């Protein structure tokens, strides 16, 4: 016999709510507290290394959205391509990582930068200068195991959420 319809459901419900009352709330109060972002994430922004790039445009071909735009000119003196324009519309980017994986010279990486919201749509279009590696835009370990092993180990759990007033 199942012990149902004796008003037990109400007691169960009450116990659930009181248990929620007694534990930490699962809310992150954003400006004061942040979630831990993995340093090995496949995410957010691309970092481009001008020294390693040969202008082969494999990344642009692999991009399913056609978000990467690359223009090159020939440099007959050094017998190589010079990258004149390299820009990506991050508004189109779906962070599939195909360009990073396709790059034969390991010149393209993801960054684990967390806050890359913009106020204007044209700010989403990033050119050569904006795609450099800077202290704010650190290189993620995605697709580069030797990089990933060097990065410090980390937990993604919210270790402790305390209320700040």
């Amino acid at each position, binding site marked *: 016999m199942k012990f149902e319809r004796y*008003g037990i459901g109400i007691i169960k419900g009450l116990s659930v709510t009181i248990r929620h009352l007694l534990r930490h709330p699962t809310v992150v*109060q954003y400006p004061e507290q942040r979630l831990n972002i993995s340093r090995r994430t496949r995410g957010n922004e691309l970092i481009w290394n001008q020294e390693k790039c040969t202008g082969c445009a494999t990344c642009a071909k692999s991009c399913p959205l056609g978000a990467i735009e690359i223009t090159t000119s020939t440099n007959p003196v050094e017998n190589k391509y010079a990258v004149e324009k390299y820009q990506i519309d991050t508004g189109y980017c779906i962070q599939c990582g195909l360009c990073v994986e396709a790059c034969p010279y390991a010149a393209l990486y993801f960054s684990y930068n967390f806050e890359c919201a913009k106020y204007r749509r044209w700010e989403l279009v990033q050119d050569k200068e904006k795609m450099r590696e800077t202290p704010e835009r650190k290189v993620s370990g995605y697709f580069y195991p030797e990089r990933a092993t060097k990065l410090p180990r980390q937990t993604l759990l919210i270790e402790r959420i305390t209320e700040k007033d």
Partner: protein
Amino acid sequence: MMALETNINNLVRLQAVPPDWPGGFWGHWVFFTVVIIGFVLTMVMGVIYIERRGMGRMQSRLGPNRTGPFGLLQPVADAIKVLLKENIVPTAADKLVHWLAPVVAFAPALMIFAVIPFQNGAMLADLNIGILYVVAISSVSTVGVFMAGWGSSNKYSLLGAMRNVAAVVSYEIPLVLAIVGVVLIAGSLSLNQIVLAQDIPFILLQPLGFFLFFAAGCAEINRSPFDLMEADSEIVAGFHTEYSGMKFAMFYLVEYAEAIAISAIITTLFLSGWRGPLLPPWLWFIIKVLLVFFAMVWTRTTLPRIRIDQLMAFSWKFLLPLAVINLLVTALEVLASPAGLPWVVVIINLAIMAILILLWSKFFFKLGWGRIEV
């Protein structure tokens, strides 16, 4: 002039003002009126804070924590915001009724506190029919709510007000029957006498009565899960759809003042009111009121809103029969031991309550639950 003075003297004698009270009758009156208004307004703020924070934590949120230390000033900020808002009256509204409704709804909520003892004998009027007065006054708010619903000339307002009237009419009966059980044991209608009679808190002697009074009280003041009159997923905001600014604030105040009033009555009737060890009596009273209110927040967070047919069914098929049985059992017990109920009765009553609630929950389902046809 002479007649007026005799009347006042009669009043003083009836309401048992302490003879050494400074200022006599009017000093007593002014003091307690100010105390009651201050008590209700500050408690409303505290209670709103408790409700929002408690509900937030129960839903894994934080609740308001930005305004002031721990968000304590949130009710103040809300009050200021709502007072500064524009007052909009619909063109088709019955202006006078629309304007009067919040006042009519608020006055009874405040008047209930006249007979609630904060300490031994510390109350505005020690009526010898105190609890009868409470029962009579508390349903007057419904008139205000119905005036709001009618005067707004809005279908949602009217629907909400009609639901409120239906709920109050049906839940008044189990409410009063639950009170009668307490009155039988205490042997008095005066709330102060009822508190003095509680050597054993009546929640132990009347556990079923407490449960019935709590459920019926929640329905009476339209708190969730019985908040059908302002069911926002069905009828916008119910009777106060067309209210804004100060008048809306009045309705908001009424809602919580009534919740505090019901908590205070439950405290007085079942939790031995101001009695308690160590702490001063008024503090015990406030602590108990807040505890009862917390139980209301707890049920509000847990239980989903019921349908209108379930509301009626819960009153007539569940609470009313149990209230009658509870009254019968209590009467038999009082008849068996007129000198005062022994501790054994506590165990008997708890067992009766457990068995009745379990069995009647099953039976309630057999009775057709909320469906109209049985």
